[in-house]
């Protein structure tokens, strides 16, 4: 008992944190309810007389369950479509900001390259000074190392810049996929709404058939009376 209460409390807390999860749960539950009622309908009305009001009530109950599950599905799909739109916006932002970062790496590459060239010139000047003052050799060694670091920096920035092109292409593909998903969800939401009307028509026809069956049976009965 305690475990069941704990599970229910956990499920409720989860639904509060994620409204989409709550809508999804409702869609699954109402669909299962309708499925069970629809599959059992024939068995329920098989033993009833055509004019038994319980027969019409049974069809109407399944009809209501169908409307409820379609409403729940519609609410879920519409919420998911809205969430998909947020995902599209998020990926657009990532793409735009990733492009900015790529720009920064391209600038880093260009400036590191210029820095390396400037360092080579400074090394040449320091070497000239060393001809008169050998004690500068320690500084020269460090400056050569710094020049190597600048060259290394250029190579790494170049690598980052190259990755940026790949990332941008992948993100552009990803954005197109997210947009397709959003479009599919919006189409599905519209189709669920259209389907709701068709299911209502079907169940109306089903109730009309029951009424016709009753009329056929009731006619000769009345005639006998």
């Amino acid at each position: 008992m305690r475990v069941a209460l704990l599970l229910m409390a956990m499920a409720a807390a989860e639904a509060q944190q994620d409204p989409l999860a709550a809508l999804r749960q409702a869609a699954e539950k109402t669909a299962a309810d309708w499925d069970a009622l629809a599959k059992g309908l024939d068995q329920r009305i098989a033993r009833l007389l055509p004019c038994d009001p319980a027969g019409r009530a049974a069809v109407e109950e399944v009809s209501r369950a169908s409307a409820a599950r379609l409403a729940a599905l519609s609410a879920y799909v519409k919420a998911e479509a809205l969430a998909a739109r947020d995902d599209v916006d998020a990926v657009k932002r990532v793409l735009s900001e990733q492009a900015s970062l790529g720009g920064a790496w391209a600038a880093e590459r260009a400036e590191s390259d210029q820095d390396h060239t400037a360092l080579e010139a400074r090394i040449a000047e320091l070497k000239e000074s060393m001809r008169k003052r050998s004690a500068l050799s320690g500084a020269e060694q460090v400056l050569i190392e710094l020049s190597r670091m600048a060259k290394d920096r250029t190579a790494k920035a170049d690598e980052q810049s190259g990755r940026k092109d790949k990332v941008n292409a992948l993100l552009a593909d990803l954005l197109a996929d997210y947009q397709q998903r959003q479009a599919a969800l919006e189409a599905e939401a519209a189709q669920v709404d259209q389907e709701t009307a068709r299911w209502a028509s079907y169940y109306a026809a089903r109730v009309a058939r029951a009424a016709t069956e009753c009329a056929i049976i009731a006619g000769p009965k009345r005639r006998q009376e």
Partner: protein
Amino acid sequence: MRRTLLLAAVMCLSEELFSEQPRDPVREAYRSWRETDPNLEREAAAGGAAIAQRADRMSAEAAKYAAARKAMLQSLAQDQAKQIARLENAAVPAEPAAASGEADSQFVISESAKVTRTINAFASDPDKGIQQLRAALEREREALTALAAGVSTRQKSVAALKAAANAIDTARSQALAEMRSMSEAAAAQVTDASQEAEAWAEYYRKIGEGARGDATPITVIPPGVPPALVNNPVPAPPTVTPLPLARYVGAWTFPTSNGLFHGAQPEFLDVVVFEENGQAKGTLLARFKLPPGSDGDPVLRFDFTGPFQASRNQIFNLTTTDGARGTIELIPGAAFNLLEVNFQTETKPGKVHQADVVLVKK
């Protein structure tokens, strides 16, 4: 095509904006550094105190540039991490079974078959009532046919949805892998920038060292002569600190003009640091400028002690002459003769309890 053009426009605009703004402080610091003394290397042969001072000035400018560059790289690494987190949060949930339309489709097929069987059974029955029932069944079948078309269309959307979700999953994993590599590389660049900053400080220190004494030209060594080796080399004294102890120990003072400080401004501030068996012992004596009308005590004196640690910055416990406790941090500066001192003590009424100053070696 329109989407491609739009993306290209967004990306070009972003690159333009980003490549200019955050780099400006770095470029400014670089320009300032290079313009401070563009002829240092060319004129270093002259030697003397003037060259050492010029090297110190360049060292300070190089440190500013390094700090600006490190901040820019850290910002890049943080931005990259932010984009990764954003993409990680855009995971696509699996579609619920209720959305598949499978149960609807089965229902429609099964009911259509039943209705059709009944219609066929009554096909040749001339009874008027049965014909009415047959007509009702025909209308039901029409409704089921319309439903079948609707369910089928919805199932196509659901299939497109699943295909898009699979494509998203693959592209998202690939993009995240590349972005994580970029993020790791950006973090490594921050470390490289720190190493470069230390190398620049070392370079200017060596220029200053090389400028001392008389000029001695490089002796021309004939080819094939091996370099001389010291037979009894003297090992450097062992130390736990990553930088030489000389960067911490000795007598340090606050410069009389243009001294750098945060918090209370010193009139004078002297620090002496000794080392013995890996332990630091030191004293700070200072007099601070207090706001006009203040009746606080401008003089502060404290002793500090503790073991040297295997870290660049050294932190020791201190006790003031009034018994207040606190800590002092010794931070080696960008140049070998600079030491940043940052201390905090317990708050005592009328006493200076915090300051951050850059000192020069006496």
